[in-house]
């Protein structure tokens, strides 16, 4: 899910870098002191989740949790996603430095998608949770396909990404479980 340096077109990376800084400001505008620990904690949770690998469809995958980030943080999800990816890049080189912008736009979009679904209050909460988790992976995947295509990869790259469908399904179920747990134990966390 994380694009390393050198894989896709540099111009795309630079443009995305600039846009992502803009998004950090937009998403973090007028943040109040009460919101900060939540954002930091969510960033840490995203980072820790990425440390836990499990085998899936022949490769090693890890959870993204972008759907949950979107549910809990709403419009504030972008800065924590950005910070978590910065950590991943610096600590174990998951995703590059130049591609930080691209990666955070991709995964931030996943979180925003989760938020959008979560806001649609007329749908049953369980379904919303399931969808949020699912889209949290699918949306970044779609963006990645786009970026690879722009960078000259053929359509065959679709095969490479199909494994994420499986991951997205798993994330959906996990997000559902997490939301149900939080609803029982600490409902204050869910907006």
């Amino acid at each position, binding site marked *: 899910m994380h694009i390393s340096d050198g894989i896709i077109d540099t111009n795309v990376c630079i443009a995305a870098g600039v846009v992502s800084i803009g998004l*950090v400001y937009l998403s973090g505008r007028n943040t109040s002191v009460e919101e900060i620990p939540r954002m930091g904690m969510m960033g*840490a949770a995203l980072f820790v989740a990425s440390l836990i690998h499990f085998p899936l469809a022949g490769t090693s995958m890890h959870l993204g949790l972008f759907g949950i980030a979107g549910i809990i943080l709403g419009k504030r999800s972008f800065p924590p996603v950005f910070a978590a990816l910065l950590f991943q890049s610096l600590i*174990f080189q998951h995703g590059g430095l130049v591609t930080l912008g691209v990666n955070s736009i991709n995964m931030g979009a996943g979180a925003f998608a989760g938020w959008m679904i979560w806001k649609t209050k007329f749908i049953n909460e369980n379904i919303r949770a399931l969808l949020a988790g699912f889209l949290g992976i699918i949306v970044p995947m779609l963006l990645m396909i786009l970026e690879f295509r722009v960078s*000259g990869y*053929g359509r065959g790259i679709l095969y490479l990404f199909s494994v994420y469908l499986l991951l997205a399904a798993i994330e959906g179920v996990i997000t559902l479980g997490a939301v149900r747990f939080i609803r029982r134990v600490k409902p204050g966390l869910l907006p």
Partner: protein
Amino acid sequence: MKHSFIDKYSDLDSPVHRLDPRIKTLTALCLILIIVSETRGELFPFLFYIPVIGVIAAVSRIPWGYIMKRCLVVAPFILLTALFYPLSGMLTSDFRSLGSYNHEYMVGISIFLKAYSALILLIVLTSTEKFHNILLGLRKLKMPKLIGIISALMYRYVFLIHDEILRTNMARDSRTTGKLKMSRLKVYGNQSAMVFVRSFERSQTLYNSMLSRGFNGEFPSMSRLSLKGKELLFAGALIMLVLAIRLANQNIQNYLFN
């Protein structure tokens, strides 16, 4: 509780270690940018980039075995994407003779080389500096303030989560037989969710204690970063060298091959 998964070789001493974290980060970023923006399919300049990177890594005294081990974590993904550059065309277009994919192969290889060069530079950067110093450097380099605060908190919170995991693991293990006899998904699920909830609560308390000591968004620090002219010169020279390789590439090739 002791945590050793970061900062492992940051206590060694070498010219790379001694560089100011700001300069080090900026230099790494510049070098990576120059190399990854190299024209696709160009393999020749890597004859020069690779030795330069090798020298930097050697000077840093980070053991090669360690660098390779860290490379391995992301290696499959890089290899796969590099491989897919030529492959992704073949898989979907009509059959062409394999020979006509020559350029695609070259691009695939250059993607592979770029990615690895960047990876090794990044590894050298992050293993020669304490992680919190890199964050401090980034803050001084005017990264967005919010990201500065969040990442400083994250640094502490990651340990907090780690602690919670270790402790609940012990408590869980002491009521099991070494193996779980119930649905593992359910047990691990509940445990992780509880760790998540408790960490959120503790993070609030921790933040309250910061507020109590006057925290207002700025992270004051006792350690003063000091820029030395020598370091600036060294970093500048390094960037110029790589840039020169990049720019001179075409001329050298013309000279050599015509």
